């Protein structure tokens, strides 16, 4: 027996799978956005709004839940492609599960549009989409620990949840490229201090983009959509 010093994180293999998936996505030109939040923060409502507002962008949604397909149905009613992923009780999506979901999405739809099929890149998924949203399992803890292979990580925090969440779930705020503060139409009814929330989030992650929005009234959506569009352009260029 010999001793091997590893000092590797338990999820090191996932990180490698995630990097490989990201590289494949770059080749196909589709931007995968991992959307994370607590249950009920408004992920599906926000995505519904984005689908309606970004009509000229080809969007697909992968809904990850422990059970049910209510979210996927809501998305399909809007005319966007969607698949439901059941995580069999797992509290997060990892890179392997995400790659399998992308493949299922590709099989469900004819891969006749876009740049190549993605299979050429070895991915086996469809590149008929500009944007693919992965709606992760509602949970502020575990999804932050697993790199899904997404190009961008976005987290939602809703006003009713409170402005102290950066203090309680620091890793989620560190891992997210953007923080979308949802349900700002309810600010009058809760003691949610936008300034405090923003400074707490920036303390953890100075470069984090912050977008206070209401998917219901449309307030703030324009800035978020501008950022998504410019991220997509950037992704396709590199």
């Amino acid at each position: 027996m010999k001793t091997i010093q590893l000092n590797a994180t338990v999820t090191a293999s996932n990180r490698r799978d995630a990097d490989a998936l990201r590289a494949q996505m770059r080749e196909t030109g589709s931007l995968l956005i991992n959307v994370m939040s607590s249950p009920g923060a408004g992920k599906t409502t926000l995505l519904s709004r984005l689908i309606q507002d970004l009509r000229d962008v080809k969007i697909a949604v992968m809904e990850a839940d422990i059970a049910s397909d209510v979210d996927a149905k809501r998305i399909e009613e809007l005319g966007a492609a969607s698949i439901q992923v059941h995580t069999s009780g797992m509290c997060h999506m990892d890179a392997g599960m995400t790659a399998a979901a992308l493949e299922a999405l590709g099989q469900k739809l004819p891969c006749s549009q876009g740049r190549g099929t993605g299979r050429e890149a070895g991915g086996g998924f469809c590149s008929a989409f500009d944007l693919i949203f992965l709606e992760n399992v509602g949970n502020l803890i575990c999804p932050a620990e697993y790199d899904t292979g997404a190009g961008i990580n976005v987290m939602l925090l809703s006003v009713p949840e409170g402005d102290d969440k950066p203090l309680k779930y620091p890793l989620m705020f560190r891992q997210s490229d953007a923080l979308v503060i949802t349900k700002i139409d309810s600010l009058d009814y809760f003691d949610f201090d936008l300034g405090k929330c923003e400074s707490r989030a920036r303390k953890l992650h100075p470069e984090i983009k912050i977008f206070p929005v209401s998917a219901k009234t449309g307030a703030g959506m324009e800035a978020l959509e501008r950022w998504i569009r410019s991220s997509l352009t950037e992704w396709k260029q590199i």
Partner: protein
Amino acid sequence: MHEMGIVLHLAKTLDETAEEHQLTAIGKVVLQVGEVSGIMTELFTDAWDYFKLRHPILKDSALVLEIVPAVTWCDNCKQTYETVKYGRTCPHCGSGETWLIQGNECTIKEIEAE
């Protein structure tokens, strides 16, 4: 199911290590687990014992968990304190502007193998 998910990732990372070092059997796996990493050590050990029997290279392995104490830093008074005892509020000055600096990790420190 959180623990079983971690066991699966751990096994995958170990498989890759075994391939890289051309190992045929892993005898001991030493993990550093943070006190507030959210891992229930008893459940984790159970999940490992269940899984290893189904994974030949790990069949005779022993899992050793080293617990890393959780330490929080107070931004206000620039001191550290024990996270588990005092939680989010700094016991020195009462501030809530505090951040965990260690105790959230789950790291494979070393393995014994042949």
